[in-house]
């Protein structure tokens, strides 16, 4: 059933009893052409694009829990593409291109809101670094512009730009095409669209092993629901990637860290955009529901516990209230943790692996949500062609051997 105002109206009259399942939960078949491990936005999207763009519909997405229950449903939904390096700009901007129009493509309102992402500079080094980004973005055709403190304030009125603060605002880089989307809807929208194209979504089915032929290539996955044959396997398991890849005998250049986020109680609209500050390590937006959504950096140690420490949240709130003291009296409603997989250069790995028929999409760290459609599209392309697309070609495992890293964080360097 196509979603529209008309179908909503028609169904209302029949008491909403005729809505079909958006994504039937299937029992596994004995064999698929492609098995995707991990039903987050990336994995579901890859299945969708395999079916939609490459005509490969005999596809299963296997999920140990419930679809969209990992980082897709736990992140702060920031979408932007104002990255420094050509490789990053190409990948993330491709994603933003897909975000724009994804609701219509999927016939599912994923609520992509181009509210603008403003990244604040608090010291001379930030200014230099952001100016570098702005110029590189401009020549790459990625929108990003420099704002003075006063312009920052105009764009985001709750901002305190008084110069006597500990970290006064010295300006900001604004990407207007950036913003947020409704995280759950992204997973559900892809799941529904993929299901319609014949993809099987199998939830509550943990992968326990990866089977390989004597000649090395993959033949399928062992799961809680038995063996499932697969011509190709795409692993898109975020924080659990190391665990899955170890089943194929591959040790990954990854570490998994707890990442926390929190929301305030809902209040009436007050915050028109997304603001990020690297100097104080925090970011903030306001959801459609009215909650202020806050995020910060990871906890320091590796963990799969989905549980973080209080002091991380305290510092996060403290940092936000340093920039936006007007929010001091708001109240934290809910905090939660996810597990993010981080590579040494904080850029993803998206491509082939040493094992024939095994593909991996991981290492997105704290920024995987924004890449969802782009990563999914690239993973599907790589699986379909057994070869990466131009856009994801640099994101190999091999770069860790050659040293050809894509290190955005290192490029931002540190203060001197």
């Amino acid at each position, binding site marked *: 059933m196509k979603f529209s105002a008309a179908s909503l109206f028609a169904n209302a009259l029949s008491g909403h009893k005729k809505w079909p399942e958006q994504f039937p939960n299937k029992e596994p078949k004995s064999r698929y052409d492609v098995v995707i491990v991990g039903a987050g936005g990336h994995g579901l999207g890859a299945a969708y694009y395999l079916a939609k763009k490459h005509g490969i519909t005999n596809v299963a997405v296997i999920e140990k829990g419930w679809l969209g229950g990992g980082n897709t449903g736990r992140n702060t939904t920031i979408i932007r593409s104002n990255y420094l390096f050509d490789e990053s700009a190409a990948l993330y901007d491709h994603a933003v291109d897909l975000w724009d129009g994804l609701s219509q493509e999927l016939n599912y309102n994923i609520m992509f809101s181009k509210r603008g992402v403003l990244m604040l500079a*608090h010291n001379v080094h930030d200014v230099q670094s952001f100016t570098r980004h702005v110029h590189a973005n401009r020549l790459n055709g990625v929108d990003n512009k420099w704002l003075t403190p006063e312009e920052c304030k105009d764009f985001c009125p709750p901002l305190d730009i008084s110069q006597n603060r500990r970290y006064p605002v010295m300006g900001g880089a604004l990407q207007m095409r950036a913003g947020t989307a409704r995280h759950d809807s992204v997973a559900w929208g892809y799941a529904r669209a993929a299901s319609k194209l014949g993809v099987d979504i199998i939830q509550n089915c943990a992968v326990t092993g990866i089977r390989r032929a004597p000649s090395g290539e993959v033949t399928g996955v062992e799961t809680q629901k038995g063996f499932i044959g697969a011509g190709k396997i795409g692993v898109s398991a975020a924080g659990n990637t190391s665990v899955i890849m170890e089943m194929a005998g591959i040790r990954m250049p990854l570490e998994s860290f707890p990442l926390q986020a929190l929301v305030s109680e809902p*209040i009436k609209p007050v915050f028109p955009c997304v603001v990020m500050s690297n100097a104080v390590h925090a970011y903030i937006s306001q959801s459609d529901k009215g909650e202020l959504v806050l995020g910060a950096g990871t906890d320091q140690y590796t963990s799969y516990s989905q549980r973080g420490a209080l002091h991380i949240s305290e510092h996060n709130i403290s940092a936000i209230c340093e920039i936006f003291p007007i929010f001091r009296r708001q109240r934290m*409603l809910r905090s939660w943790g996810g597990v993010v997989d981080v590579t040494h250069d904080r850029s993803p790995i998206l491509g082939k692996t040493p094992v024939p028929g095994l593909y991996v999409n991981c290492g997105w760290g704290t920024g995987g949500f924004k890449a969802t459609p782009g990563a999914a599209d690239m993973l599907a392309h790589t699986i379909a062609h057994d070869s990466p697309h131009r856009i994801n070609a640099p994101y190999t495992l091999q770069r860790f051997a050659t*040293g050809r890293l894509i290190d955005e964080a290192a490029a931002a360097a540190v203060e001197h």
Partner: protein
Amino acid sequence: MSAFRKPGRGAVNTAVSVNFTFDGKKYTGVKGDTLASALIANGVHLMGRSFKYHRPRGPVGAGSEEPNALVVVDRGTGRESVNLRATSVEIFDGMVARSQNSFPNLKFDIGAFNNTFSLFFPAGFYNKTFMWPKSFWDKVYEPFIRNMAGLGPAPTAVDPDSYASSYGHCEVLIVGGGPAGIAAALQAAKSGERVILVDERVKIGGSLIDAPNCEIDGKPAADWLAAAVKTLGKAANVTVMNRTTAIGYYHDNFVALNQRLTDHIANPKDGAPREETHRIRAGKVILAQGAIERPLVFNGNDVPGVMLAGAGQTFLNRYGVAVGHEVAVFTSHDSAYQAAFDLADANIRIPVIIDVRDDIRADLRAEAERRGIDIAAGQVVSKTSGKLRITGLEIYDPQSGAKRTVKCDALLMSGGWTPSLHLWSHSKGGIKWDADMAAYVPDVANENAVCAGACNGDFGIAAALTGGNKAAGGRKSYSVTERDFGTGVTLDSLPNYIKDTKQKAFVDFQNDVTEKDIKLAVREGFKSIEHVKRYTTNGMATDQGKTSNLNALQIASKAVDKPVEKVGLTTFRPPYTPTTFAALIGHCEGKLFDVKRVTPIDPWARERGAVYEPVGNWMRARYFPQEGEDMHAAVRRECVATRESLGIFDASTLGKIEVVGPDAAKFMNLIYSNPWSSLKVGGCRYGLMLNEAGFIYDDGVVGRMAEDRFHVTTTTGGAPRVFRHMEDYLQTEFTDLDVWLTSATEQWSVIALNGPNARKLIEPFVDGIDLSPESFGHMQVRTGKICGVETRLFRVSFSGELGFEINVPSHFGRAVWETLFEAGQPYDITPYGTETMHVLRAEKGFIIVGQDTDGTVTPHDAGLSWAVSKKKKDFVGRRSLKRSDLVAQGRKQLVGLLPEDDSVLLEEGAQIVADPNQALPMTMLGHVTSSYYSDALGRPIAMALVADGFNLNDQTLYVPMPGKTHAVKVTGTAFYDPKGERLNVV
């Protein structure tokens, strides 16, 4: 006294009136009232509007579980507290409270048109529409949705209140001051160990206050409670914290408490902390959080006046308030009879108890009869009447089909009880489904924690007391006379003759989630409880589903046709109740947000009007503007003065590490890329430090003070990470070396003197050091005295001029600086800041790590191949430097750039291309890292990282800027005095 106040009832002081306003109207309550109890005492139940449909709502609960009655308390500018639960807000004289989420007012709210069309806004409606035309999402639909959403008003001013935070420790932390918690505390108190008992309400007592109709050890509950409070108050090892909520339970028994200190006080002292966050590390945690009553999910269950049975009982017993004059009861659990009886005994008419069960316990039936209460067994409420307040209800007998109406002005409901597992769940304690109770109860603990009383599934006062005592290690059995708490049934949905499409049976009141919404979610494939929650938003309101989660779970379970335990339970997430941001920040705001480090010389710079820049934790003087000067003018003046005569600069922030031990040189060889064995005592050397990946990590001048002692300097921001990097390798890789590291950054103040007159200035002040160029050459260090103070005197230059860095013990820094500054007047000595320092070094082509390099630059890229030893067998980063990409041709390399147009100052960060006329995306060769106007050279200069830059010398490249492209010529980086002759001034 209002008609709803019951004198002689409740733990309030009716002798003391408290005046307040709600939505501008004046009301009077009594001391001890909450806003909800005071309003109800005035006959007001309508206190809020729901989130989605803006339906009129009154309190459902009587405590922190309340989903409906959310209000604003306005204490003046910046002191507007929103989304407060009226059931938890203590009134004080002069309180100004308002309703929220309604316009123009609570009784008539335009937003309620959502309710009229609620049929079109089922769960997940927003996923299905608002997609066409595409541009309408950003411009029309979303702004509209946002304006409709949100609850309380947004802040308009900064909260001026103070907040506090602290760490605390105890052996036993008890959460919840009901009978279980009190019994636990009494027992734990005997051990002499530190015991903390916290309770979110005004006073401890819990159900002993809410339902006091029992005797403990032969004493009335109130007397027993008073004695217990006294005992605990006298015990020196026990701390009882009221108005304190345990908001989160973290690793290793780390529990966060939020204590409210002034919200209940009419005129708190200005500056008194409003709230304090106590972060408690407990040896053992006893959770006695009690249980939360479950609403019944029936058509019309959200009209103001419909509330939980226990809430009705609490309003009576705790606050002395009748929730109505004619109060009907609808239940599936025995406990609601206690509420009915308590109300009846207070002369409130109970027209009927509607019980979904056919068989009613004989004693309850008898007691009801004795009070003349009609019981409608095996029947249900099929609808309610009244919009802003319940006026009556319809009873439906599903067996006979008979219907009848009953008038009432309040309806108490009970669907049973849900043990509060919030903190237990935060602690990652296991839970198990108890089918009899139809609730989850605690299973295996993950921390040293134990649940007692109702939160452990042990209902009734006796069970709570005994359980609490046992949890604290006791074996006491209490003798309690009480009514049997009883049992109940849970129905997945209540029978009704009305078509379910015509029903409005709410599960989550605040978020307006109905039974239909949950069934719709399941129908659409959202079969995990987490999916149901997210699709319907059930349990995601500000009460986090305290009253709704279990009902939603059971409805979903039925719809999925799986046992509840297979459908799961949504995760409880901290905080237990919404917690003020500023309380979580505690002291760490304003100047305590982050350490601000300044040098001993800083006050002098501040007096001189220096402009500062933050660098790491430090504040450094950036330039010293004189009257009418902007940064450029000041910097040009400072540069010229330094090159022509003498400049003075505070370099104290440079990191300093003393490396001492017989293997010091060996260690230096391993940690730096250049060699150290050959450096003689009294010599200095530029040190280049790489990370293991082979990229430049830090740099600085190092002096060899003795065979076994190096004075290492680091960049200002780099000091902490360099120290860690060194300790890490020393302790885990180079473990056989006899060498130790001592941070000495703040032992020394560093005064950098640069300029041809530098030596002349210091000569009269220096003792014990021969300053002659022959004896004390460039890149040498000596110890002696200056101005009578011990010094480590470095002859080094970051400017290309004759230079000294005078290290003196910190407490003498300012005095030495002032002495030299005074004596420097004949040389027009000029203080300069970091900006001038940057220009001077750029003229010489010296790099700033972090500006001209980033974490992707190798020594070779930066033109520092000379600082990488070819002979050493090992140093950090050595092997990685040989990786294929690090030795590849065409890497970005540091070069000089001269704009062809002398009037152009390139922008730092600007990108460089070979062909400015290409289409986007352009192929970029690199970027400008440093750019300044150089007076010494009479032109702008720049440094840049450019692909294959070393092979592009003399070539013309382009810097495309908005509206204009600048042509630049590639050069070397040593712009000024490339042979270094200026160092040799005598």
